[in-house]
């Protein structure tokens, strides 16, 4: 019974922390883009515009809900909902930290450890495409449909190379459970040391894969709320699309955990810490890493001009896919030569 209560609390905590991060990643994005473009950025609501997400939220909740004529109302609403759902349910398998002990009982800081954790993540990511497609189609708007088709075709073609770059890592760890993958890295070295190419491919793909989502909702690009005509959720109003998009960025930030390990903590220091303190440090380091990746996304997004669609496709299919295949091959050969293959 206590384990059930703990899990419910953990689910709620993960949900609210994710929502909070999604909320403030909108603020961070606008501030960062402002710094890069020599603007001030949001500075009216609260100190440094820190209450801006709250003000935006109130505005969006109280705004009149618009549904375009001739659109399918149910699908129109459920499209961004799916995008958000898929982003949220990935949190279920992420090991946030080590075990915590409360009142003599030990609980893992992970909602559930399924033995196909990596496959689960990829399944969820592949379903995320529907959020975009359905949202784009349901508004019965040609621009939305074109945007949706472009964004989702980009997403699925990048999924393949992304999966292949992970396969090389799974070959080495020999397990699909996220908990074990993280534990192995905590005991030894981060997988990034063994698989630098997979890491680079994976992160490049994450970056590009998220690109179409990044500008979708009410014009984040120029820091105003002007709607961009190439967006998928062109006709959408309300808070869900915006959150869904930022969630997605966040979700893929988690996946980096696979390759980076949780915390490369100096071993002697670890021994002196109580389990609870260690779990706290691990969780903090985990979130710092997520923030680091989110920052990296924004940094690249606002520095480098967007690739054209055909350039993106060429890069994905003709460069990154062969590279990740090569990586699998090299990994196999090295594992065979070093006798790790039995």
């Amino acid at each position: 019974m206590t384990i059930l209560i703990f899990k419910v609390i953990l689910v709620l905590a993960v949900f609210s922390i994710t929502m909070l991060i999604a909320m403030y990643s909108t603020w961070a994005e606008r501030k960062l883009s402002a710094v890069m473009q020599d603007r001030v950025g949001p500075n009216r609501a609260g100190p440094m515009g820190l209450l801006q997400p709250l003000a935006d939220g109130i505005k969006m909740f109280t705004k009149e809900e618009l549904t375009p004529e001739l659109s399918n109302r149910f699908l129109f609403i459920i499209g961004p909902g799916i995008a958000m759902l898929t982003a949220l349910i990935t949190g279920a398998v992420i090991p946030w930290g080590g075990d915590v002990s409360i009142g003599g009982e030990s609980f893992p800081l992970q909602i559930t450890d399924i033995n196909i954790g990596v496959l689960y993540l990829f399944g969820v990511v592949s379903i995320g495409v529907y959020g975009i497609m359905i949202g784009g189609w349901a508004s019965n708007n040609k621009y939305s449909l074109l945007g949706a088709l472009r964004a989702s075709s980009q997403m699925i073609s990048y999924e393949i190379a992304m999966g292949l770059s992970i396969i090389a890592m799974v070959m080495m760890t020999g397990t699909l459970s996220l908990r074990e993958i993280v534990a192995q890295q905590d005991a030894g070295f981060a997988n990034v040391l063994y698989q630098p190419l997979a890491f680079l491919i994976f992160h490049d793909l994450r970056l590009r894969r998220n690109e179409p989502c990044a500008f979708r909702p009410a014009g984040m690009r120029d820091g105003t709320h002007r709607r961009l005509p190439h967006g998928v959720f062109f006709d959408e109003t309300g808070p869900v699309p915006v959150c869904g998009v930022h969630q997605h960025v966040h979700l893929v930030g988690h996946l980096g955990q696979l390759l980076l390990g949780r915390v490369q903590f100096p071993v002697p220091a670890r021994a002196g810490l109580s389990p609870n303190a260690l779990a706290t440090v691990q969780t903090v380091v985990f979130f710092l890493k997520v923030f680091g990746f989110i920052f990296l996304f924004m940094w690249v997004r606002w520095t480098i001009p967007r690739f054209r669609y055909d350039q993106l496709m060429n890069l994905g299919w003709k460069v990154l896919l062969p590279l990740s295949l090569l990586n699998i091959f090299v990994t196999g050969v090295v594992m065979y030569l070093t006798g790790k293959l039995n």
Partner: protein
Amino acid sequence: MPISEILFWVLSITAVVCAMLVIASKNAVHSALFLIVTFFAVAGHYFLLNAHFLAAVHIIVYAGAIMVLFLYAVMMLNLRKDEESGKKPLFKIAAAISAGSLLLVLTVALKRSESNQMLGTDTQIGTVESLGQSLFNEFLLPFEISALLFLSAMVGAVLLSKKQI
């Protein structure tokens, strides 16, 4: 009623109802979406049978990849309702007869089979480990042959899409 039985009924009803809606709905996009829901229900059944790998791959491949391509095709074609002309009565009769005989064959086959016998009580049979073991030991040759088949299909698809080689 144990929870697995409740889940079984919920998933079964979802699968059957959605599968019927796939053919019943007028809009092609709605059909495709109902098919996706059907796939999810079937994947849920795989989970109940402890076939975790099959369930995950079912979702990744069928729901995540194949149906996305289906949806593309349907959305791009932009089918309209009025374009759906009525089929000739001969076609309708032929379709009814062939579907009816398929139903008959399936029903008889299922009735004759010893459905109460489980294939085995091994709960580990569908896990990734045991699946990998049997694929790469027992069924290595069929596995490799099917890989070759897929490769040739891929080459064929590339060949067809190229105007000049």
